[in-house]
């Protein structure tokens, strides 16, 4: 019994380790080669950047000839502001939908989560026109508004499901204490939804950070370029300079990696907190 258990546990580890390697290998390859000279990249792609192979020229071109700090600032601004808006407005709407009965409540609830099924991308034609008419073309605001609209349905869906499962008693006792509805939301509901915030955040953040479509169309300007678009452009500009391209990719990966490692515990705890029961 104990032996079969050991064996199966070793088997499980073997499978998971194999898959982990598959997940990590490509990243490692990029980072390793970004520190090598062009000749070394080609001659010995899997070799470590040691001795003759080592070169930091790629990073020189990235740091001197491009605006990656600017792109990062843009991506960070867009992602963070959109996230805050999605979380706050989403929680507010979900609270209204789950807490109060009012005429048309289920209809508006359905209307608000319709967007999960219908990607805004399909409205690009009109969206571009709208953004231009509002004078928002080539601004980060345009991206933030679009991403907020895009992220709201799933946020509202998850929050509503979660809030419905939370007992009403806490809120009712707060009401008896004489708290206004606004204070109930901020002081009772917000702490309540904390476990699912991470879930919503991850589900909203990934498509925003990684999006190529809307930056390419709504805000392709130099000043509003996001990291994803910046990398795409950089690859085009330094076609044959692989050291630089790989360095740019590494530069784009590292901050995400660091942020992820710091927050991964909360993120995964959030996802598995029982919010997304499916």
């Amino acid at each position, binding site marked *: 019994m104990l032996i079969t258990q050991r064996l199966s546990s070793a088997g499980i580890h073997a499978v998971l380790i194999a898959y982990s390697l598959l997940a990590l290998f490509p990243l490692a390859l990029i980072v390793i080669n970004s520190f090598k000279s062009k000749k070394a990249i080609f001659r010995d792609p899997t070799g470590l950047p040691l001795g003759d192979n080592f070169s930091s020229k790629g990073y020189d071109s990235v740091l001197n000839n491009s605006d990656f700090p*600017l792109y990062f600032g843009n991506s960070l601004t867009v992602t963070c502001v959109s996230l805050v808006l999605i979380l706050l407005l989403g929680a507010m709407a979900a609270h209204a939908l789950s807490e109060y009965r009012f005429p048309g409540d289920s209809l508006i609830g359905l209307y608000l989560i319709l967007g999960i099924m219908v990607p805004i991308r399909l409205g690009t034609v009109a969206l*571009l026109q709208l953004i*231009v008419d509002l004078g928002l073309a*080539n601004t980060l605001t345009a991206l933030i508004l679009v991403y907020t609209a895009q992220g709201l349905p799933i946020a509202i869906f998850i929050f509503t499901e979660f809030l419905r499962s939370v007992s009403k008693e806490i809120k009712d006792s707060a009401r008896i204490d004489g708290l206004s509805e606004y204070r109930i939301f901020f002081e009772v509901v917000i702490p309540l939804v904390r476990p699912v915030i991470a879930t919503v955040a991850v589900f909203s953040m990934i498509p925003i950070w990684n999006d190529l479509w809307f930056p390419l*169309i*709504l805000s392709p*300007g130099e000043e509003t370029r996001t990291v994803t678009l910046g990398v795409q452009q950089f690859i085009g*500009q330094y*076609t*044959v300079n692989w050291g630089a391209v790989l360095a740019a990719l590494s530069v784009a990966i590292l901050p995400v990696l660091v942020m992820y490692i710091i927050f991964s515990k909360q993120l995964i705890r959030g996802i598995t907190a029982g919010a997304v029961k499916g």
Partner: protein
Amino acid sequence: MAINAMRSGLLAVGMCLTGTAAAQTVISIESWRAEDQAIWDDLILPVFEAQNPDIDVQFKPTTATEYNAALNARLAGGTAGDIITCRPFDNALAMYEAGSLAEIGSIAGLSNFSDVAKAAWSTDSGDAKFCVPMASVIHGFMYNKDAFAELEIEVPKTESDFYAVLDKIKEDGTYIPMAMGTKDQWEAATMGYTNVGPSYWAGEEGRLALISGDAKLTDDVYVQVFEQMAKWTSYLGNGYQAQGYTDSQNLFTLGRAAIYPTGSWEITGFQENADFELGAFAPPRKDADSKCYISDHTDIGIGMNAATENKEAVMKFLEWTTSAEFAEILTNAAPGFFSLSTHDIKVENALAQEFVAMRGECEPTIRLAHQILSRGEPALGNQLWTLTANVINGSQTPEDAAKEAQANLDGWFKP
């Protein structure tokens, strides 16, 4: 590099201070020559800016493959740059007809260009002109001189020479005979089909015959070019189907391939990256008795975004691009882009000279599908990309590809 960093640093600061800064007019150029950023930033624009301190010109390129789509989006959205680098013929014409490009016939310096050059950026009647002709590029082949010397090969003159050379390189095995891939599709069509094609369809004669309806793409002379493409397959590198344009560039500049079908626009990049000696030769003629033809393509023009708010500054800049000074800087700062102006400019770069020399021996023409034939759906220009790639990949026979191209053209084109 340091200058660049400072430049972008200042730019960033400048952006924050917009409004408080001096009354300088800032205009920007849309271009697909992302590779030339440094040339424009360091060599071309400073000259203009020194003469016009009140104008700040910024070069803002988009990658070539994304240029048209991104530019159209920006034009539709009103966020496009003030100056637009124009592709020739149908593409720019459509942009003019859509009201995106302004009429610029009033530029006095236009008299410095031949009618042929101006035709690429005029309406069919020639009444309206929408871009100043800038440069042409010459198609041909580049080769690794060291490799040729090592294998004791002569530069090929005729089709049979050409294949003899390829066979010899292949037999030897040290080098991949030819660096070209089909993944990006345009590479196959531009470097292959339109590069060697003129020798078969007799340059302008064959191109104009298609437009007048006297010839069809299914005629022998055009099918033969597809047949050539099919023959090329065996000389390409392993896995050429997944080889993109930049892969080809790397393959050649790393010295792993001996011949690179290309055009003069590669000169700067290649001379920077290759550590062997580069040479160029013209597309092979059919046989020793026939004429040779080159595609001397009117490739780049420069025009004004009709919606610009800095019309005066833009016109000033466009006027400058007609000057001998600009022609001189361009020709020698970006060797391989040959000024279309009638100014007498001496080409200094040796490799560029080799390309220019081809003009002396061969009849010039432009790329087959650019004029008139790419005005409908589907545009012949795009068709040729996919079809040439298919023929090289062996998924379509030359006859089949020719038939499909003609059938699609018949769908909308009336000679």
